[in-house]
């Protein structure tokens, strides 16, 4: 347990440090960081297996006063490590005639640091330190956005750092308030900020103060999770960042922020009527889905398109969290599926951008004939993102609607379905425009560096596996996490 946690966290740190120390940059560093990512992915899987075997719903594999891995942490850790591995393997700085070494170095440093901070965020059990880690993710990821410094990237990085810092600061204010509540009612206790302790003693806490705290926390982490109306940084940052980073941000960073919200929700629900947190989450979730959906209708850039679809999906997850056990199950499953599908789509978008040298949908035509494999995989990614079978997101959206109807919230189901149709219509329109039509002149035909395609094809396979046979370990992991979050 402890060892696997060690091997989960340390390799990215090593890779980052190595990238800092070794200069000028050499390909070796890149490969080392790939290997490290692989190791930590293996470790995360081991961790997940251990948790499943331990089988205890929530009680917890506390490793020390500081670290703690339960099902939810393991789930997130697996996602993070997986996407990191993809990003690291397909990122710049691996082949000889690669990009500018300075850029590669910057990328390797902060990509690994980024991964490290995310992994820490999901495995640490002190809510304040969790906050520290999440704030750190902002800093590390922000440093990679202006990898190639253009006006756009600078603007995007400024908006990202400013909005997210302000938001995350609010989350800390919420944390402090909750702590204040705890200290005021329960007095000084060692490990009072460990959220298990918080949750155990939540019944004593002063409900209204806790509600205020949750308001701060929801807005704060919600900013990071891209919930509307705090999502505004997201399309800019995700579209300007280098594709591997976009993949990590969109695929898992948002999920990490929602992880924090889920943890706090568990605490607050123990003290106040869950109706409060549920309705807040429902409200922001529906708003996100709405804004995400309608921003997709008239969208000119495919990376921004993917970004808005992330907003929409995070909204769905938030709604799921508000819909009781089944909804939470659907939400967590959706997090996993979305991590795979969205990271894949962003990496493919990177290949398309590299070939067509434009992010405009209107100028990317005849993709299926220019890059047959990339094109078809991209199509698969989009079709998965709109929630069609046989891909995983269909299952999770199906469960989400079912949860809504079982919870008697028919109007939620109705609204979500209408919005999903809007999303489908717009995405399929854009996809249609990109895949078919005349090939623009001056674009070379055929695939280059085909092995990334293979890697991405694997994640397509994963998506199908998730959709057709939701594997037992994963569903067990998720249902354990549900029991950990919902009391």
């Amino acid at each position, binding site marked *: 347990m402890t060892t696997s946690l060690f091997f989960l966290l340390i390799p990215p740190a090593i890779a980052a440090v190595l990238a800092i120390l070794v200069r000028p940059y050499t390909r070796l560093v890149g490969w080392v960081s790939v290997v490290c990512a692989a190791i930590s992915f293996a470790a995360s899987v081991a961790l997940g297996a251990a948790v499943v075997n331990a089988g205890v719903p929530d009680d917890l594999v506390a490793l020390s006063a500081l670290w703690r891995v339960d099902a939810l942490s393991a789930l997130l850790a697996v996602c993070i490590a997986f996407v990191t591995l993809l990003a690291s393997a397909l990122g710049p700085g691996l082949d000889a005639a690669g990009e500018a070494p300075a850029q590669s170095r910057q990328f390797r440093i902060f990509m690994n640091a980024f991964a490290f901070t995310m992994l820490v965020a999901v495995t640490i059990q002190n809510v304040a330190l969790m906050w520290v880690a999440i704030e750190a993710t902002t800093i590390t990821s922000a440093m990679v956005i202006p990898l190639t410094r253009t006006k756009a990237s600078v603007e995007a990085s400024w908006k990202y750092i400013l909005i997210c810092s302000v938001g995350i600061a609010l989350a800390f204010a919420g944390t402090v308030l909750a702590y204040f509540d705890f200290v005021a009612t329960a007095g000084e206790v060692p490990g009072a900020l460990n959220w298990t302790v918080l949750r155990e003693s939540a019944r004593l806490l002063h409900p209204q103060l806790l509600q205020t705290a949750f308001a701060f926390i929801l807005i704060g982490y919600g900013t990071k999770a891209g919930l509307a109306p705090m999502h505004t940084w997201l399309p800019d940052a995700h579209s300007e960042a280098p594709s591997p980073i976009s993949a990590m941000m969109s695929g898992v960073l948002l999920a990490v922020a929602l992880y924090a919200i889920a943890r706090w929700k568990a605490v607050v629900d123990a003290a106040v009527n869950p109706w409060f947190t549920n309705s807040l989450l429902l409200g922001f979730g529906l708003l996100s889905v709405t804004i995400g959906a309608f921003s997709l209708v008239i969208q000119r850039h495919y990376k921004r398109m993917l970004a808005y679809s992330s907003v929409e999906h995070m909204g769905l997850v938030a709604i799921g969290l508000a819909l009781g056990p089944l909804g939470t199950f659907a939400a967590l499953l959706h997090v996993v599926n979305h991590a795979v599908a969205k990271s894949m789509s962003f990496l493919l978008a990177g290949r398309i951008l590299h070939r067509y040298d434009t992010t405009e949908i209107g100028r990317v035509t005849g993709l299926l004939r220019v890059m047959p494999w990339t094109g078809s995989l991209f199509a698969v990614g989009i079709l998965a993102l709109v929630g069609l079978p046989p891909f995983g997101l269909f299952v999770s959206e199906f469960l989400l609607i079912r949860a809504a109807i079982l919870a008697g919230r028919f109007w939620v189901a109705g609204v979500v379905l209408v919005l999903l149709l809007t999303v489908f219509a717009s995405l399929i329109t854009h996809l249609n425009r990109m895949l*078919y039509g005349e090939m623009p002149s001056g674009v070379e035909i055929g695939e280059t560096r085909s092995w990334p395609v293979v890697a991405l094809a694997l994640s397509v396979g994963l998506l199908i596996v998730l959709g057709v046979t939701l594997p037992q370990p994963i569903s067990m992991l998720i249902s354990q996490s549900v029991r950990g979050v919902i009391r």
Partner: protein
Amino acid sequence: MPSGNLGLVVMVLGYGAGAGLSLLAPSDRAARVLTAIGAAIGCIGGLIAASSVLVTRVPVDATFGSLVSAAGGVAIHLDPLGAFFLLLVALVGLPAAVYGVTYTSEYEGRHSLRLFGLMFNGFLLGMSLVPCAANIFTFLFAWELMAITSYFLVMTESQYAETRYAGLWYAVMTHFGFLVLLPMFLIMAPGSGATAFADLRTHAALMSGSAKSVVFLLAMVAFGSKAGLVPLHVWLPRAHPAAPSHVSALMSGVMIKLGVYGVLRVVVDFLGAGPAWWGGLVLAAGSISALSGVLYALTENDLKRLLAYSSVENVGVIFLGIGAGLVLQSYGLHTLALVGFGAALLHTLNHAFFKALLFLATGNVLHEAHTRNMERMGGLIKGMPQTAALFLIGSAAAAALPPLNGFASEWMVFQALLSGVQIPQPDVAIGAPLAIGVLALTSGLAAACFVKAFGISFLAMPRSEEAARARESHWSSRAVMGVLAAGCVGLGLAAPRIFDGLFRIAGSLFAAGSSASPPAVGRLWLAAPNGVAQVSPLLIAVAAALAIGVPVALLRWRGLQWRRADTWGCGRIQQTARMEYTSSAFAEPLRRVFSELYRPTEDLTINVHPDSRYFIRSITYTSAVVPWIERAFYDPVARGMRACATQVRRLQGGSVHLYLLYLSGALMAALVAAWWFR
């Protein structure tokens, strides 16, 4: 292993192999052949499974609970009704697959035949699995497999912007249906979270009337959009022409019928008898679809669009049968109700045959004439006599002319509607004669429509070079069309036996029905309920053969001498194709009669000689039919969506201050909420 399960295994393996192998095929040619072989094996498997169930009446069951256990696992249950539709898939799929081998040869090098093979087999697999599905997840899975693959099949000839547009319409409409399907099933699902169809059936019995009605309405919308009921038919006349012809044959012959399957399964099987207005609604929908379908078909000059609209019409006829059944059932007249359902099933089967035949024949025509526009065809009967003859059989069947199969099923629908007058309440019963009037008008118009379809494109003088040069297609495609044509005749003559079987299938849907016995008299007679009227297609055929054959024989015996001459041209020496009656001219009278529906836009510009207005240089006349039904329903939606989108776009204004303002606003709102909530 019972033959049923064996058949299913063979089916799945066949389609799977076809998909996989054609994807990995070494050459385009190999891809074509492998596609067909896999599909054929799959169809044969489906044939085995379906017929074993239909013969032994023992349903086939199989469950794979481990797959997606979270969503209820994958479950298969093939009962007679499902078997009938599985049979439909296989019966049309087999000819289509064989036909495709030669038809897709022209795609070599232009489109990816590997992808096509994958999608084609996936499409067949999806369609075959829909009637086998025994729980919500499996059904939706198969349903969407069918939808996605058919989307890519429609997009095959993506070089045309028109095709891409059609694909868009198709995708959106089909997904709309899918998203309506979800709540429909989930409302029926019991709170325990069980999703097996058996549980749905039991739970539906406990549901309140209003909940049942909601499910019914959702089912009508969801399955109606697949079946192409007006006004949800918009994708049909776009997608069918765009798709390759044998795919159109499958879509029109089988896929839209799965909408019929859905309605029968959910409304008749799960919900059971409902209030009379359900049936009334179905009758209304059927009447509107039948009438407007055939009317739009009449004014079409695009041969495939014409056939697509005719599919809308036939689906309308099918729903007339179902509607009659529902109304009668709601009054407890179960035997009569079964006649309605049986008639619907019979017409489903018959339409599958003649529409597939027509689309395949059209495929040959397209291949030769290189256009779908009838006004550039003509005289094809000289170049391709056999295709012409086959198309004629199809048209006659579509016009419900005896003794072909279309006649048998429409006669049964007539009788089913007629028995509606036996409903005790006159104010309800009066609906039956009205529906009969609609159906009669529809069949008359259908006859006119297919006179036009055949006469304009195959008869008289060719209107274009290509049409003049048209030659017969590959023998294999003619062979499969021959099989389908034989089916059209055979199903017509054997209608009494078949209807007997379909009646029992419909009877298996509800308890009261299983005891009822079909009104068929012997094997020769197609009989109305209570035997108040009979008709024997076989005898009609024999008598007609006599009545036509004897005069022929007599004239031959007397010997009639004849000679060739030019068509009389009112004194003109030379008849040219320009002087022939065109497709639009043929439809003109009816277009005037129904101008209320068509709202035709006409524009006549006469370019006269500068010296005297009596010397006319050129006359240009353009006229178009306004599809106002579509406009009325879909334009507002599109406009609303765009409006919302433009509003939402404003939010992302670009100013970081604005964004921070949102953030602060959200914070304040949340704080106030937290402050209020006690």
